[in-house]
């Protein structure tokens, strides 16, 4: 097994990074030669300004090459220097076995796997996890993720079946602080270290940034905003048969019935939430309003409009009356015109005008 793994881990450079960066470095050389001869010419001709500009260009090119060289060197040496022998791999496998009780290598999938003890975080059981590293991905030294984490006794978060650990979703472990040391361990093929680093993440709960927080593990997602509310802060809305968080749930100001915000309307006048049963529509403009905000089935602005209209109508009628044939006036001087139903058909004096307005 150690020999197989050692063979599998031989660098294959799928990503071709060293040759690529070497290629880029070589491509810089003709440019460098050109700048160099231009610089020499400028100096020879005593073109000081031009010489200065070429010197700057030369420095920039050399800096670029310097970076490329150190990257290439570290890439090549860190890999040749540290790559373990078959004997080291065997020692690693023994260490993994001693730590986790087992280690398996699947030749077909090129995966090296082990299984953790049952993991409990903050009193919540998540069961055992199988940690698998794909060795051909490790050997290729790509940025591709070689790690896969599988829950053997899954206790998924209520909101998402794929989340089987606060930091594991769909086989992907979010490494957080372990990113750099794990990357270093896999690049250097330190397999036992890699498994121990992953186990340390699985054994830790970081409340700052979980896929699903432990306190909401058995909670329900709010149908409106998606927030996972725990049992105490999740509410059921009967009209729509869904669950909601505190923020997306309220009650009718009139009858007190609790419902989600979609099942409640807002009174367009006072803004209070009202259920369908308690809502009224303004007779004038059709706006949704609570009973408290309507007077004579009108919203305040329609009520005001109607009152103004009435006054205007009355004024118009008065005006009409007063501009009618003056001969009538002379023939029938006073009292005939006043009727009891508050409708003034003919008004003759100031006193009567006032009466009709207030009627």
């Amino acid at each position, binding site marked *: 097994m150690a020999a197989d793994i050692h063979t599998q881990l031989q660098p294959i450079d799928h990503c071709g990074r060293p040759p690529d960066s070497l290629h880029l470095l070589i491509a810089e050389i003709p440019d460098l030669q050109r700048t160099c001869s231009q610089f020499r010419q400028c100096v020879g001709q005593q073109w000081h300004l031009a010489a200065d500009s070429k010197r700057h260009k030369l420095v920039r090119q050399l800096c670029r090459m310097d970076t490329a060289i150190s990257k290439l060197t570290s890439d090549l040496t860190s890999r040749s220097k540290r790559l373990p022998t078959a004997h080291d791999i065997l020692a690693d496998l023994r260490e993994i076995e001693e730590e986790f009780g087992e280690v398996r290598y699947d030749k077909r999938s090129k995966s090296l796997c082990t299984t953790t003890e049952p993991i409990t975080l903050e009193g919540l059981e998540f069961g055992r996890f199988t940690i698998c590293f794909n060795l051909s991905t490790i050997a290729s030294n790509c940025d591709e993720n070689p790690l896969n984490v599988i829950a053997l006794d899954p206790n998924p978060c209520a909101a998402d079946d794929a989340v089987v650990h606060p*930091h594991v979703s769909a086989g992907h472990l979010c490494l957080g*602080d372990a990113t750099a040391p794990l990357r270093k*361990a896999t690049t250097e093929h330190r397999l036992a270290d890699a498994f121990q680093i992953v186990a340390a993440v699985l*054994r830790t709960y970081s409340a700052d*940034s*979980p896929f699903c927080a432990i306190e909401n593990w058995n909670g329900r997602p709010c149908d409106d905003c998606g927030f996972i509310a725990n049992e105490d802060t999740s509410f059921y809305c009967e009209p729509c048969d869904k669950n909601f968080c505190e923020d997306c749930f309220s009650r009718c100001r009139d009858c007190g019935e609790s419902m989600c915000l979609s099942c409640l309307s807002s009174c367009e006048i006072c803004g209070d939430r009202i259920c369908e049963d308690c809502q009224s529509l303004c007779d004038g403009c059709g706006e949704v309003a609570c009973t408290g905000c309507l007077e004579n089935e009108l919203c305040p602005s329609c009520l005001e409009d109607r009152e103004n209209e009435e006054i205007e109508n009355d004024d118009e009628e008065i005006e009409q009356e007063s501009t009618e044939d003056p001969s009538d006036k002379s023939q029938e001087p006073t009292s005939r015109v006043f009727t009891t139903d508050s409708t003034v058909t003919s008004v003759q004096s100031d006193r009567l005008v006032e009466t009709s307005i207030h009627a």
Partner: protein
Amino acid sequence: MRIMYINNFGGGFADHIEIEEGTTVSKLFAQKIPDGRPEDYLIRVNRLPASRDQILKEGDRITITPTKIEGAAA
């Protein structure tokens, strides 16, 4: 005296380092992780669990791995 020193926290480190003769595991730990507590780390010398007063020898391979590392999401 040269030993192989590997730490699996922070940015990770694995290289040979020079230490004084007679350096114990806990002395090296205190030098490398001054504000850490040894009980929060898995410390192995030559792949075996090490005691704190174990004296390091030329060519030893010491690994220090935190027992808990904070993961994240996304």
